[in-house]
Structure formats: C-alpha cells, structure tokens
C-alpha cells in the first residue's frame, strides 16, 4: 500500500485493506468530554475574508437574490477555471465558477427551467446551449414528460402530489466525501475497476448493463475530480497528508459533486468526527495550533455558505431562502457505547460565533441522552443564541442505521456511502381527503383528478363513511405516487446521473425511495371533528363541497390526546403500507417522511377548506406540527403527540418545529441551559425523532418583518432546515409568526 506519510500514526484496521471509513473513525476516534473552553478565537484572515463575503451576500440580496450567472458554460466537474474570493486570505479554496456567488447553469435536470431562471434574473442562455439540450441531448425533464401518464400529469397539476423532482436535480444523495481524503482517487478508482471486473462480470440483465455503464461513468467522474484538484494545485490521487489537505480534499469532492448536479438537497454527510482525527494528529505533532484548526473549519464553512444553484423565483415560494441543505451531522453515539462528540464537533458549532448565524450548512446534532452534559449545555447555548441547530434522535436511528449515518436534507437518515435515496416529494393528504369527498374532482377547479366516483351525498360528514372513501382513494393515490416516482428516477438515472456522488458509494448500494406526506395534522383533526362533533358540508352551485361548518369542540392533534393522536398514527401506517404494495424502481425500499420545509404555505394555498375548520388557502402546519393555535396544553403535550407517530413507518423522518420564547425555558440562564437539554432528552426518551428549536419571541420576528435591514442574519428553523428570515416570502413570514410560541405563564 502506497500511502506515504498520510496514514502515519493512525491506528490500523480493516479500513487499510478495504474502503471502510467507519472502521477508520471507530479505531481513531477521540471523544471529547470537556467543554468549549479550549476553542480559539477567529483569525484576522478569516474575519477579513468573511467581511468580503458579507459585502457580496448583501449585494446578492439587494439584487433580488442572484448576484451573477455564468450562462456561457455548462456546469460540470471542473467546468470552470479556478475561482477565488481573495486568494491571499483563503486557506480552503475552490468555487463553483470563476467568482464567488456567480451561479452556474446546469441544464441536465431540465433546460426549460434553466432558461426561465436565467431570464428571470436578466440573463439569457445562449442558443447553442438550449439547442444542444433540446435537439441533441435529452434532459431529465424531457425524459420524464415523455413517459408521464395522463393521471400523473393531472395529479401533478392539481398539487395532490407535488414538489416532484422532475425539472431539476433530485438531490438527497450524500457522497462519502471522506473517502477521497482517506484513500485518494487512485485507490478508489482501482476499487471501482475491480467491482466492474469481478462483481459485475455476470449475466447481462438490464440492471447489470445499467450498473456497468454507471460504474464506468463513476470512474470517469473520479478522473474529472482529479482534474478539479489540479485546477487548484492539488493532487487528489493521493490520500490527504494532513488536516489541511483532508479538509481540502473533502471540500473539492463536494464541490465537484454540486458542480455536476443541482439537486435540491445535497448534504455533506458526517465529516466533523472524521476530520477531528486529522486535526488531532496535527495538533499533537505540533504541525497545527488550535487557532489554525479553527481557521480551517471556519474557512470550510465559509465555502459551504457560498454554494448556490440557479433557481426560478417561484421555487422560492416552495422552499424559501435559496436552500441547499448542506447538512452536516454532528455528535451521536458509537455502537461500542462511546459518544462521538469531538473537539471538532465544537469547532463546527463555534463557526456560528465567528461567522454569525446562517442557514447553511444545516447543522444537525445527532442527540442521544448519553451525550456528555458539557456538550448538551453547549448546544443549548448555541441554540438559544442562534436558533440554527436541529436535533435528531440518534437513539432511534442508530439501531436501523448504525453509527456512520448522516442526515440528508432535513430528517432522512442514510448510512454514508452505503445507502442512497430516490427523493419522493410529497403527497398533499388534505387534498386527497377532499378529492375523496368530491368524487375525485378538485375542490378548487372542479376538474376530475382521481377516477370518477359518486360524490359524498349526505349533509353531515360521517367519519366512518368518509374514512372508507379516503382509504379507497388512498389505494389509487399510493399506486400512482410510486409509479410517478419510478418514472422520475428512471429518467434521472438515465439523463442526469450524479456520477461523482455515486462514485463515492459502494457499488452494491442500498436504495431508499423516500415518499412524503404534508398536512397530517389537518387530516387528523378533520377526522376528529367528524367523530366528535357535527361537520356540515357546504356545497357550491355545481354540487362541489367547498366548505364546512363545524358545530362544537373536538380533540385536536398536539394535545397528547389519544382520541386524535392514535388515528393520526394509523393514517401514517396506512399510507406507507399502501405505498409498499407497488414495487419501487431498482428494488428501492419504501420510506416515508412527515416534512414540509416551507412548502406547507404553498400546499395550503392550493387546497380548499377542510373539515377541521381550516379555511381555503390557509397554510398547513409545517411537518408533523399541530395546526397553529390548536395546541392548548403546552410544548410537552405536543411532543407527546408527535412521539406517538411510529418511526418504523416514517423512517425518512418526522419533523417538528418548536418555537419557544426565551423565558419559557426557565427564569435564569443556568436553568434555561439545563432545561433545554432536558427538553430534548425527554422527547427522545419518548421515542420522538426530530425537532427544530427556535428560541426567540414573536416581537423580534415582527420587527424583522417591518425592518429587515435591522436583522440581516436573523435565522430561524423551519420544518427541517434553517433559513434567513429575510429570505422568506411575506406569506411565509406571516405563517411563521402565527405559529404557537410557548411562553412562560
């Protein structure tokens, strides 16, 4: 093995003879039980560099959200010449194009959207490129639409399934970028070549032919990555020799990947614990000081904060704030009982002090009740100051995913380098309920969306009758939904494959197909209203049910009331078991999430009044949250309701967003720090999965809405990710402000 000094003083193991990053981490991990007092201040260099970026970010925001676009070059690994912010200040280098925040055009997902997006910001894509991607090279988008059935198109148009990744990159795939640092591309290429020559030398069925072609492409992508390294003066063929190189190797691999695809969510994985091993080695040998170690992490984070994709403005209505979901998973427990909080876990969180709060990267703490108390307190401090961390229950995920998984996007767990997922958008559950009442017609347009059936005829809604209709239509929906996703991912693999990301996976990768539902609490409350009170249908001239009158009180989701919580859990179980009846593309395993991000506002807009009393067009609650203002018993009751939703049926995640006034956590700082950790410990002991915590008051948000210039970095957590408040649409801002804030009495 030719590794030079790269592996010197690392504890050896299986990782030396085969690709096994987890083994490397477990053998070399140094858990940090102490607190944050070792952390170093920001360097002048980083501060100056970030100040320059801040100017550019201001200009970007002032210019309508886009600073510049390179329309001449098709984005790909190493498609652009080297770019710098200010070379003399950068200790980590590499940009998507030749200048910071200049966006690249990536037409592989769809040329139409690329053209529209450029046009919206005053740029035109040259005719040669549009011609190339219309006449000579098919895009994913064209592929999908050539195969969509009429049913699929109707469902898509009405919004009963929505957010479909059929016009841009699907995202959600996490390359194991650490592999490049640990092994270098040369060794990775050799391993892929062996896969081709040994594992995949077999009967040439469809899957084998497809996979052989893909692996050949992956090898090419690794060569392309080597070229990207050369552009910046690095030899990625070899393993990283020190911490600085490890950071650089990982970053360039990630950069190449996002040059190649413009996927909606591209997590970076779980790099902090890995990098810690390199940083510790260099610190020990005196090659690096703590200040330099922090500088490397700060500069890496700056780079991640500057990554951009070209999107149309209406994408923003769905997913506000130009999100990339560059999720980094921090902490968690090792299978052997040690915790995986390292000094570098602290260094990552410490970037928030140096660079201020930010939506990216999407910092995610894999929380276990067994994490060290000092770390829990530090998380509390950072969360209370910045509202930028999300927390996910390592204790419920570890049994399924082991100790080397990462969170993709917001809540989706995957074993790094071993699992990939086909992102499955969302089904609008309240709309499905309304279709079931209206004989398959859209409640807003009257158009026939689902197969025609007898509309619900009685004046009052009978829960059991309605449920029967709902379940019948759900069968149709689930089948259509799976088939739609199959179509999308078939075409995406064919026309917009993420070669580099997949090169950083095992060849015999396990695949998930990650479906989603929106509006769970609306549907749960609707059935509860039907069961516990009288719901009268209001019909328009054409007999369409367009509104409801509710007479009396009924139990509402979010109050720890089994009468509504258990049926909600049943809805979720029912939905995933219907999905499982239709086979998923490439034998993917079906999973489900309850997550909306900010799209709950748009889903609500596209949905008529519902039997729970929600008016036409009103937003849904985000993720699995109770509907705004219906949670009457305080935060823990809401957490208890959520904890009843079965993770086994929702392995792609159950998202909750909690907004707390600072005083709700306690009367004094020391109590607030303790109660914050206890809040999470308690929820996760109950089996809860995910929580975003915002610690701020409504007045701050209202002020930020009125005077955005006064709160340039105000960041809040919405379902599954953080976003700059200023970058929400005003409808989204209103929705956030109308959420329940838990205050001290």
């Amino acid at each position, binding site marked *: 093995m030719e590794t030079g000094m790269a592996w010197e003083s690392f504890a050896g193991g299986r990782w030396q003879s085969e690709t096994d990053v987890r083994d490397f981490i477990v053998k070399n991990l140094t858990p940090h039980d102490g607190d944050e007092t070792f952390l170093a201040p920001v360097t002048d260099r980083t501060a100056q560099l970030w100040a320059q970026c801040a100017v550019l970010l201001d200009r970007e925001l002032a210019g309508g959200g886009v600073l510049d676009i390179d329309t001449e070059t098709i984005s790909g690994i190493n498609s652009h010449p080297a770019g710098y912010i200010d070379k003399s200040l950068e200790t980590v280098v590499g940009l998507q194009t030749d200048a910071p925040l200049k966006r690249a055009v990536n037409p592989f997902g769809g040329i139409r959207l690329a053209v529209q997006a450029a046009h919206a910001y005053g740029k035109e894509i040259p005719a040669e490129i549009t011609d190339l991607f219309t006449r000579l090279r098919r895009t994913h988008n064209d592929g999908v639409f050539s195969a969509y059935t009429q049913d699929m198109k109707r469902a898509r148009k009405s919004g009963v399934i929505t957010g479909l990744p059929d016009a841009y990159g699907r995202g959600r795939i996490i390359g194991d970028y650490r592999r490049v640092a640990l092994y270098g591309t040369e060794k990775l290429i050799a391993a892929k070549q062996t896969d081709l020559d040994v594992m995949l030398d077999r009967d040439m069925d469809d899957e084998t032919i497809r996979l052989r072609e893909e692996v050949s492409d992956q090898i090419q992508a690794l060569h392309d990555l080597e070229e990207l390294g050369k552009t910046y003066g690095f030899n990625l063929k070899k393993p990283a020799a020190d911490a600085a190189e490890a950071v650089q190797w990982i970053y360039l691999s990630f950069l190449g990947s996002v040059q190649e695809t413009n996927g909606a969510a591209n997590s970076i994985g779980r790099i902090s614990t890995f990098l810690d091993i390199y940083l510790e080695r260099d610190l020990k040998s005196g090659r690096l000081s703590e200040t330099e170690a922090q500088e490397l992490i700060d500069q890496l984070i700056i780079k991640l904060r500057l990554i951009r994709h070209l999107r149309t403005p209406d994408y923003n209505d769905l997913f506000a704030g130009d999100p990339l979901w560059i999720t980094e998973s921090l902490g968690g427990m090792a299978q052997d009982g040690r915790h995986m909080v390292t000094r570098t876990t602290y260094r990552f969180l410490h970037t928030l002090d140096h660079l201020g709060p930010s939506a990216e990267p999407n910092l995610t703490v894999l929380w276990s*009740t067994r994490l060290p108390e000092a770390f829990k307190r530090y998380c509390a401090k950072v969360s209370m100051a910045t509202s930028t961390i999300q927390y996910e229950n390592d204790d419920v995920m570890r049994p399924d995913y082991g100790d080397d998984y990462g969170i993709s996007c917001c809540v989706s767990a995957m074993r790094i380098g071993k699992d990939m997922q086909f992102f499955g958008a969302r089904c609008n559950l309240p709309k499905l309920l309304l279709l079931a009442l209206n004989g398959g017609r859209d409640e807003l347009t009257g158009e026939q969306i689902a197969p025609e059936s007898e509309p619900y005829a009685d004046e009052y809604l009978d829960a059991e009758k309605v449920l029967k209709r709902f379940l019948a239509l759900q069968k149709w929906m689930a089948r259509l939904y799976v088939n739609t996703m199959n179509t999308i991912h078939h075409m995406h693999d064919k026309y917009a494959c993420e070669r580099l990301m997949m090169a950083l996976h095992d060849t015999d990768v396990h695949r998930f197909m990650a479906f989603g539902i929106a509006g769970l609490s609306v549907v749960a409350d609707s059935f509860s209203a039907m069961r516990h009170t009288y719901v009268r249908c209001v019909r328009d001239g054409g007999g369409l049910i367009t509104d409801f009158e509710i007479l009396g009180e009924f139990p509402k989701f979010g109050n*720890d009331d089994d009468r509504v919580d258990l049926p909600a859990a049943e809805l979720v179980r029912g939905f995933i078991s219907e999905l499982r009846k239709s086979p998923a593309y490439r034998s993917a395993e079906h999973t489900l999430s309850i997550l909306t991000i900010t799209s709950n506002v748009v889903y609500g807009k596209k949905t008529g009044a519902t039997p729970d009393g929600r008016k036409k067009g009103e937003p849904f609650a985000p993720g699995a949250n109770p509907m705004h203002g219906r949670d*009457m*018993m*305080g*935060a*823990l*009751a*809401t957490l*208890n309701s959520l904890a009843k939703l079965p993770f086994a049926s929702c392995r792609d995640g159950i998202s909750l967003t909690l907004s707390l006034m600072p*005083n*709700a*956590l*306690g*009367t*004094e700082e*020391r*109590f*607030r720090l*303790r*109660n914050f*950790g*206890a*809040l999470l*410990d*308690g*929820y996760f*002991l*109950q089996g809860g999965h995910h929580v975003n915590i915002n610690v701020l008051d409504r007045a701050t948000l209202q002020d930020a809405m009125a005077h955005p210039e006064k709160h340039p970095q105000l960041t809040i957590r919405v379902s599954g990710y953080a976003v700059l408040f200023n970058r929400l649409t005003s409808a989204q801002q209103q929705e956030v402000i109308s959420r329940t804030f*838990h205050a*001290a*009495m």
Partner: protein
Amino acid sequence: MTGRIHSLESFGTADGPGIRFVVFLQGCRWRCRYCHNPDTWALQGGKEMEVDALFGTLLRYRSWFDASGGGVTVSGGEPLLQAAFVTELFGRLKHAGIHTALDTNGDWPEESDGGRKLEALLSVTDLVLLDIKHPDSEAHLALTGAEAASTLHFLDCLRQRSLPTWLRYVVVPGLTDSPPAIASIRRLKDTHPNVTGIQWLPYHRMGIFKWHEAGIPYTLEEVPAADAAFMDRLRDNSAEDSR
C-alpha cells in the same frame, strides 16, 4: 374523586425546580387586584376531571421530570380549596416517585379536624411555593380582600413540619415594593429555616385583557410593569434551585 381543573400546562419552568407539569385548579376566594387569572376565581367553573385520569396524564411526562429534576406543580386559582383532591393526586405522584409542588396563597379553609387534613396534604408535598401578597395586614386586605394572617399561619405550619418552601412575592410598583415591605419578606426567610428561597416576581400587565373580557373593572390600570433593573437587584438573593 374529581377535581375542578382550570387548565393544564405541560411545559412549566417557573413554578418549581426543573421542568414542571402545572395543573391549574379552578376556584379562589381572594380577589387580588393584580390577579393574572381572574378566570380561575369562580368556584364552580372549570372542567371536572377524575384524579385517576389526571394522574395517568401526568405519568406520560415522567421522562422530562427525570431529565430535568422536575415534577408536578399544582397551582390555581387556590389549590387548598380542593385539598382532598390535591392530597389524593400528590399521594399517587409521591408513590410513583414524582416530585410534587404546591403553589398556594395559604388560604386554608377552617377545619375542625385538629389539622389532620392539612397534615395529610403536607405529608405528600415536597415543596411549597407560598405566595405572600403583602407583609402588612392592612395593605394585604386592601390588595386581596383577605387577611394576611392565614398565609402567615400557613407558613408557621410549614415551619413546624420543616417543609421546604419558596416564598413568592409579586413586586407591584407603588403597592408592594416599598423598602419596609421588601425587608419584611426577607425577614420571613430569615426567621423560617424551612424557607430556602424567595422568588421575586415582576408585576406584568399581560393578564389585563382577561379582566376586560370578563367585564370586571381593573383598578391598577395606571400601574406600570415592574422595572427590570429593580428586579435584577432583588433577584441577587434568589435560591430557586435549592431542592
């Protein structure tokens, strides 16, 4: 056995140590001029709830009590008016190993049982949060419509039992914040070894809308909220985490 419940708050952090589930009971005989919850006054209002059902609900929050060193606080209204219910509930909680706190003004109804019922309640109470409205009896009467003596008598019972107690005192500018009044409260702590802390609570105006809603004239319209800096100075002596 049933109790009259005004409301339930699952995430309380101000009424006792750690994370508390706070049960607000219905009914109060006093009429404090600054009361934040006039909707708890009516003795016959609220929702009736079986002690079994309530206990079952509270058990669901155990993981937070354990994680934070918290427990259940019964508040009101005035919980002593439903002492039998509270005794029953606290008895079960104690048995289950859950910390119990009683937030009361000390308005113990006259009983001719030689203190048996009070004894029963206090034997299952881990902590008392005793609201002192005003140390001066005349001012107390003017502020609450009730005698200060009952609170002080209750405090003596707590001292006799050595029951850990926090005093709570609402600081109302111009009404309860005179230096002699503050000094008297501090003295109460010094003369009662069972008193482990004083919680100085700032008068705030966020409950006024409830008075307006109920059509009851609010007599402190002109009184401003307590000054934050003044509160900080008072709090220097706090010992809330004394459990």
